[in-house]
């Protein structure tokens, strides 16, 4: 067994803003950090044919997603001198207005934190086997598509 076991990134339901505030607070002990860059994806109440998206239901090939995320982590840490990197993605139901993705990169200097955070977000969208089902009223739905 490697001690570099893929970390879990999934939570059932939305990512809690209180939890995000707590995560930020926990990083105040690390006094070598100078910059944090955070990205959060939030479910939009997009209108499709006059009907608003009420929620997105996320499913994933969890094992493959965690392996892919692990590879991304390793590549990012090899490329950027980060202090830490935390990722949380929702599974199951996330209502419009709630947070479904949280990426938190910290570094000594801002450039690394900002660039690493953005690259992680792009790679998550492209490389993690996760799917969103956009739910409307009356059991209507459509499968979410990520723009390039």
């Amino acid at each position, binding site marked *: 067994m490697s001690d570099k076991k893929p970390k879990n990134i999934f939570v059932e339901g939305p990512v809690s803003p209180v939890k995000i505030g707590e995560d930020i607070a926990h990083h105040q002990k690390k006094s070598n950090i100078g910059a944090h860059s955070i990205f959060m994806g939030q479910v939009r109440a997009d209108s499709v044919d006059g009907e608003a998206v009420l929620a997105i239901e996320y499913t994933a090939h969890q094992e493959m997603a965690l392996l892919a995320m692990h590879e991304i982590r390793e590549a990012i840490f090899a490329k950027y001198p980060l202090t830490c990197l935390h990722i949380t993605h929702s599974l199951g139901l996330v209502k419009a207005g709630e947070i479904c993705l949280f990426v938190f990169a910290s570094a000594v200097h801002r450039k690394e934190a900002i660039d690493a955070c953005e690259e992680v977000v792009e790679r998550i969208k492209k490389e993690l086997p996760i799917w969103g089902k956009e739910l409307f009223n009356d059991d209507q739905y459509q499968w979410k598509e*990520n723009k390039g």
Partner: protein
Amino acid sequence: MQVQLMSYGALTDVTGSEVFELEISQQSVTVAELKLILLARYPALEGKTFRIAVNERFVVDEFEVLPGVIIALMPPFSGG
């Protein structure tokens, strides 16, 4: 041989189920052959973009599918 399949995202609408089994007359097929078998059984797969993983690894068309493996059918990802 029998293989177990899992379909994800929009493909579950096509296959009707997230987990299902497929009885194949040969004892081994390539991924390319498997695709034809799937297309015959699920004509709605025609024109759909999807990738195939065998036992949690993405595989090329030439990959040999053997009995007992788990096959994942994955449409374009839409996480985040």
